[in-house]
């Protein structure tokens, strides 16, 4: 048999799309049509409502799980930064702070100069953490 299956499938798509829409039909018309198809409309709608609730709950659980995983990841990453810069020189730390803050931030570097090494290490740890979180969020948005 040689038929233009692609064309026929396109027709089937349009046919079921046109006949599936309810323009100009009352709810009662639709119910009757579905009953004629052997569907117990009340039960089907009840099942769909329950399904929607279950799916909504599953989605919320999924979002909570994802948020928890992200939090755990951040905490673990935060631990990695602690102590990481203890053997860095003050110049190295200042250079990294400048790198992370970028040209627009305009940190008061003179104030940083006046601070002790431990204090600027603490600032760098916070900045590394914020930088990591920003990258993580941008990565999620890009998905």
């Amino acid at each position, binding site marked *: 048999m040689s038929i233009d299956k692609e064309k026929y499938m396109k027709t*089937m798509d349009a*046919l*079921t799309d046109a006949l599936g829409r309810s323009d*100009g039909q009352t709810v009662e018309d639709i119910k009757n049509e579905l009953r004629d198809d052997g569907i117990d409309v009340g039960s089907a709608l009840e099942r769909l409502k329950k399904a*929607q609730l279950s*799916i909504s709950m599953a989605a919320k659980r999924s979002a909570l799980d994802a948020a928890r995983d992200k939090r755990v990841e951040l905490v673990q990453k935060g631990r990695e930064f602690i102590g990481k810069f203890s053997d860095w020189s003050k110049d190295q730390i200042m250079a990294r702070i400048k790198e992370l803050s970028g040209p627009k931030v305009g940190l008061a570097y003179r104030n940083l100069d006046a601070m002790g090494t431990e204090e600027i290490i603490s600032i760098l740890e916070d900045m590394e953490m914020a930088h990591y979180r920003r990258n993580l969020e941008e990565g999620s948005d890009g998905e």
Partner: protein
Amino acid sequence: MRNEIHILKYAVWRAKKFVLIGDEVDPEALVSEAIARAYGVGTGGTCRNWNKNKCPKLENFLIGIIKSTTSHKAEHVTGFPKESLCNKDGSTKDDKLLKSGDETKGFLKPKNPEKELIESENLQPLMDELNKLSDEDEDMGMIILCIEDGISKTRHIAEATGYDRKKVNNLLRKLRRRLENYNPKLKNNLPKKGRKNEHR
């Protein structure tokens, strides 16, 4: 979710497409999958972002998802569950929701030649039936012509034919009745209901 009945009806007709070619799809599964995709937990982790500005009605958004997942272009590629994601009591089958991407690879399998042939054989009588309906009724013929051109929305059919929307809806209703009991497995495919309705 409002207007569930419109969504269910749409899914029933989209599922009929598969019945007409000799396959079986549960309409409720299509609705559940559309809801799951809207919530971002569809089969294979699929999701569809609802742009309220573009599509203010959730009903239309869900119908759009059902349309695209069951389109002849998408059916072999994206895949969707043929059975419901939910149990009879509405609770979710957790093993079906949030499947990993790898698991969806099973849906990508091409159809075997035998199945392709059966589908083709089932399509021909329906096309013959549509041609017959076109020959019997000129107005209906115009509607079928639009459908064959891929025009399926009432508004667009009205624009293409010059008929008012009420007439288009009436003709679609008539066509719906004529095809209601169409079964590709029957030799004589003129629907019983269609025959009866001719005298309405």
